[in-house]
C-alpha cells in the first residue's frame, strides 16, 4: 500500500519528541496570534516565519503547519466572541457564531467549531493522502475561464447570506464592489481612485474593512442599544463547566452530516488554487441553509450555520496543500508564504518535490494531522479561559477590543491610512447594522469582485475577445450549466408553486 507506507514515513518524521514539541508550540503561538483581530493564517505565518529559519527544513515546516492551523482556530474565536473575522474565510462563521455567543451558548459554539475544524482538517488530510494525484489533475484543468465561472457561482451563493432584505443585501454587495475598484487595475496597469496616495495603489485591503464593519460596527451598535450598561450575565450568559458549557446531544445529531458535507465540499473547492477557503465556506453555508428543514434559524444562531463554514474552511486549507506540494502552485495567501519559505530552505517547489523530498512532504502532511489533534486538545483546555473573558463587564471589554482592533490593523502593513479606513468602516458598519444592510455581503464582494473582474478579462484577452471559450472548455461549460441551473431553478420553482396554488384555489 502506497498510502500506508507514505503515511508511515510521514509519522516516523513527525512523531519525534522534538517535532511534537515544535508542532505544539507552533499551534499555541499560532492560536494566540490568530486571536488578535485581523491576524489570520497568512499574516501569522509571515510574521512567525523568521523564527523557523534557524531550524532544519522539516522541523521548520512542521512548526509552520502548527502555526497555520493554530491561527485558523484562533481566528474563529474572534469571529464568535467579538464578531470580528480574522480573514475572509471566517466571515461566514460570524453569521451564526456570534448570535450563538449572544444567546449564552459561547461554550458550545467554541467547542463545536473546534470539533468541526478538527473533522474538516482530518477529512482533508485523509483525502490528501488517498487522492492527491487525482486532485492535482483537477487543479491543473483550472484556468482563468474556470475560475471566473467558480467566482460567479460564489457570488450567487452570496445572495443566500444577505439576510431578509435582498434589496439591501444587493446594495451592500455593490458597496463592496465599489471599494474593490480602488487600486491598480491589474490588466492595464492604470490607477483607479487612488487620489495620488501611494498607500492606495495596492487597493483597499480586506482586513481593515472587515475589522471595521464587523468589530467596531458591533461595538458601536452595542453602545447604541445600551448593552454596555447591562451586567455581563445578561449580555452573555456563561455557564462554566456545568450543563450548557458543552454542546448537547442535539447539537451533535443536528450537525453530524453538516460536518461531513462541509469537509468534502471544502476540500474540493480548496484544491483549486486561488478559489480557496473563502468560496468554500460560502458554498458550505448556503448549501446547509438550502438543505436545512429550518432555514429561518440561520443567521440567528443555528449550530449548523457555524459548523458548515468551519468544517469547510479547514478542509479547504488542507486541500490547498495539494497544488502546493504536487504542482508547486500556491493556492492561497498562506500557501504563497509557505512557497517562499520552501525557496528559503533551498527546496525547489514543483511537481518533483514529493518525489525528491518525500520525508519533507509527508512529514508536512502528517504534522497537519497532528496539528489538528493538538489543537483540538489545546482548544478544549483554552476555551474556558476565553469564555471566562466574557464575564468581564462589557464596559471594560469595549476599550480593550478597540485597542486590539487598532493594533491588529496597524501592525499588518504599518499603514496609518488603513487604520483610518478601519475606523471609518466601523461607523459605516454601525449604520449598516442599524438599517439592516449586510456587512458580510460587503466584505465578501470586496474579495470576490476583483477575482471576477480579473479572471473575466484574462479569459477574454487570451481568447482575443471571443466568448466561445466559455462553451469550448468542458470544465467551464459544466460550471456554466450549474450557474444557469442555480439561477433558473428557483424561478421555475416559484412559477410551479404559484400555478399549483392557483389550481388549488380553482379547485377549492
Amino acid at each position, binding site marked *: 500500500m502506497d498510502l500506508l507506507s507514505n503515511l508511515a514515513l510521514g509519522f516516523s518524521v513527525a512523531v519525534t519528541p522534538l517535532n511534537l514539541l515544535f508542532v505544539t508550540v507552533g499551534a499555541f503561538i499560532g492560536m*494566540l496570534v490568530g486571536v488578535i483581530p485581523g491576524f489570520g493564517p497568512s499574516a501569522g505565518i509571515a510574521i512567525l516565519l523568521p*523564527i523557523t529559519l534557524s531550524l532544519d527544513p522539516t522541523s521548520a515546516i512542521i512548526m509552520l503547519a502548527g502555526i497555520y492551523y493554530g491561527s485558523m482556530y484562533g481566528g474563529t474565536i474572534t469571529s464568535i466572541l467579538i464578531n470580528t473575522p480574522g480573514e475572509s474565510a471566517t466571515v461566514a462563521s460570524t453569521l451564526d457564531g456570534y448570535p450563538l455567543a449572544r444567546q449564552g451558548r459561547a461554550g458550545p459554539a467554541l467547542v463545536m467549531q473546534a470539533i468541526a475544524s478538527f473533522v474538516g482538517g482530518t477529512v482533508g488530510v485523509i483525502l490528501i493522502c488517498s487522492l492527491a494525484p487525482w486532485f492535482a489533475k483537477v487543479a491543473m484543468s483550472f484556468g482563468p475561464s474556470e475560475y471566473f465561472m467558480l467566482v460567479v457561482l460564489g457570488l450567487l451563493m452570496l445572495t443566500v447570506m444577505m439576510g431578509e432584505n435582498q434589496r439591501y443585501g444587493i446594495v451592500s454587495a455593490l458597496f463592496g464592489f465599489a471599494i474593490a475598484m480602488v487600486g491598480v487595475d491589474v490588466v492595464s496597469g492604470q490607477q483607479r481612485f487612488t487620489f495620488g496616495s501611494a498607500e492606495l495603489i495596492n487597493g483597499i485591503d480586506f482586513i481593515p474593512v472587515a475589522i471595521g464593519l464587523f468589530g467596531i460596527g458591533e461595538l458601536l451598535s452595542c453602545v447604541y442599544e445600551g448593552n454596555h450598561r447591562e451586567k455581563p450575565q445578561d449580555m452573555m450568559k456563561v455557564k462554566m463547566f456545568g450543563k450548557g458549557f458543552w454542546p448537547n446531544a442535539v447539537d451533535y445529531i443536528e450537525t453530524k452530516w453538516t460536518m461531513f458535507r462541509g469537509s468534502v465540499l471544502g476540500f474540493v473547492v480548496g484544491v483549486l488554487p486561488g478559489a480557496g477557503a473563502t468560496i468554500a465556506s460560502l458554498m458550505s453555508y448556503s448549501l446547509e441553509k438550502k438543505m436545512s428543514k429550518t432555514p429561518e434559524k440561520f443567521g440567528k444562531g443555528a449550530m449548523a450555520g457555524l459548523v458548515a463554514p468551519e468544517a469547510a474552511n479547514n478542509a479547504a486549507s488542507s486541500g490547498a496543500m495539494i497544488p502546493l506540494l504536487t504542482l508547486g502552485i500556491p493556492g492561497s495567501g498562506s500557501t504563497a508564504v509557505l512557497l517562499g519559505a520552501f525557496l528559503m530552505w533551498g527546496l525547489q517547489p514543483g511537481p518533483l518535490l514529493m518525489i525528491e523530498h518525500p520525508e519533507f512532504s509527508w512529514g508536512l502532511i502528517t504534522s497537519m494531522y497532528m496539528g489538528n489533534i493538538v489543537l483540538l486538545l489545546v482548544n478544549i483546555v483554552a476555551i474556558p479561559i476565553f469564555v471566562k473573558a466574557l464575564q468581564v463587564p462589557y464596559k471594560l471589554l469595549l476599550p480593550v477590543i478597540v485597542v486590539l482592533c487598532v493594533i491588529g490593523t496597524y501592525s499588518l502593513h504599518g499603514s496609518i491610512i488603513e487604520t483610518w479606513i478601519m475606523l471609518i468602516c466601523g461607523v459605516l458598519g454601525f449604520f449598516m447594522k442599524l438599517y439592516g444592510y449586510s456587512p458580510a455581503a460587503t466584505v465578501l464582494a470586496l474579495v470576490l469582485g476583483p477575482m471576477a473582474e480579473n479572471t473575466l478579462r484574462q479569459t477574454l484577452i487570451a481568447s482575443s475577445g471571443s466568448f466561445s471559450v466559455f462553451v469550448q472548455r468542458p470544465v467551464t461549460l459544466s460550471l456554466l450549466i450549474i450557474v444557469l441551473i442555480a439561477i433558473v431553478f428557483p424561478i421555475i420553482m416559484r412559477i410551479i408553486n404559484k400555478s399549483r396554488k392557483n389550481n388549488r384555489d380553482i379547485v377549492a
Partner: protein
Amino acid sequence: MKKLFSMSVALILLLAVTACGSKPAANDAKPADQPQQAATQPAAEKKEEQKAEFNYPEKNLNWTIAFGPGGGNDIMSRTIIDILKKHDLYSKDIIAENRQGGSGAVGWGYLNSHKGDPYQISSTSGSFITTPLVSDPGFNYESFTPVALMATDDMVLVVKGDAPYNTLEEFIEAAKTRDKKMAIGGIGAVNVDAILPWLLAKEAGFEIEYVPFQGDGENTSALLSNSIDAMMANPAEALGQIQAGQMKPLAFSGQVRIPQLPDVPTFIEKGYKSVTLPMPRGVVLAGDVPKEVQDWWVDTMKKVTETEEWKKYINDNSLTEYLLFGDDFTKYLEETNKVFRDVLIETGALKQ
C-alpha cells in the same frame, strides 16, 4: 477578555524573546529613537561634519525593503545584511524594515523623504524603474545616490510540456501561421514580463496577446490548463516544473545562459538582439549624500560580492551576476529607463 489582552502582551514578549534567537528576525526590532534622530538632523550640518573628518559609520543603518517579507527583494536585502554583519563590514547595527505598498512607491518614497541622510539605504528591483514611469510617486531613479548594481533577474519563455513546439523557431513559425494570436502570460501589466514578449513579437514579426496575472501561481495554472500558449517565468520558480517536464523552456532573456538551464539558448543567440531587459538588483542610498559616503559603500559592496555567501545566493536564486558601481550604475539605470519608457509609450501603456 482581560485574559485575552494579557495573553497577547505575553505573546509579544514571547516573540521578542524568540526573535533575539534568530538572526533575520533580530533585524525587525526597531529602536524607535535612533533613525528619527538621524532624520531630523539638518543635512547641511552633516556635510560640514563629514568635511572636517570622515568618520563612517557612526550610527545605525536604516535599510528600507520596499516589498513584503519573503519576496525576491526581501531575500536579497536580508542576504546582504547578513553578509555585512557576518564579515563585520558595518560596525554599527543594521535595522531592516519592510515598507511595502504601491509596487515600491511607499518604501522608496520613504527613502526619498530622507534626502542627505547617509544612514538610509535600500535595494532596487524592476519596479525601481517602472513604478516612477507609470504612477508618478514623486521620485525616479535620479532621486537617489547609486551605490552598486549587484545582479540582474532575467526571465525564461516557457510553453506547456506537451506543446507542439520544442524550439523558439517552431514557436514563432506557429505564431505566424495560425489564425489566433499567441496568448503569453506574465505578472503585472507594466513590467518586464509584458515588455519582453512584446519586443520578441515586434522583432520576429508576429502578433501576441499579453495576459497579465497577479502572481506566479495564477500564471502557472493558466499555462498548465491550456488557457494561454506561453508564459514568461522566473527561472528559480519555473525550474521545478521544467525538471518535471510540465514546462518546456524555449529561450532565456539574459545576456548569457545560466548554469541552471545550460541547454536553453538566449534570445540574443537566436538573433533577437533586442529581447533582453535585465531587471536591476542593486543598492541605492538616499539622495544628496556626501561623495565620501557613496565611495565608502561602493568599496563595501565590492567586498560583499566577493564573499562565498553572495555567490551561493546568486546561484540559489538563478540570478546573473552583473556588477556596476557608482556612476556606471547610474548610466545603466539611465539606459534601462529609456528602453522601458520607449517601449511603454509604443505599447500605449504610457501616454506622452
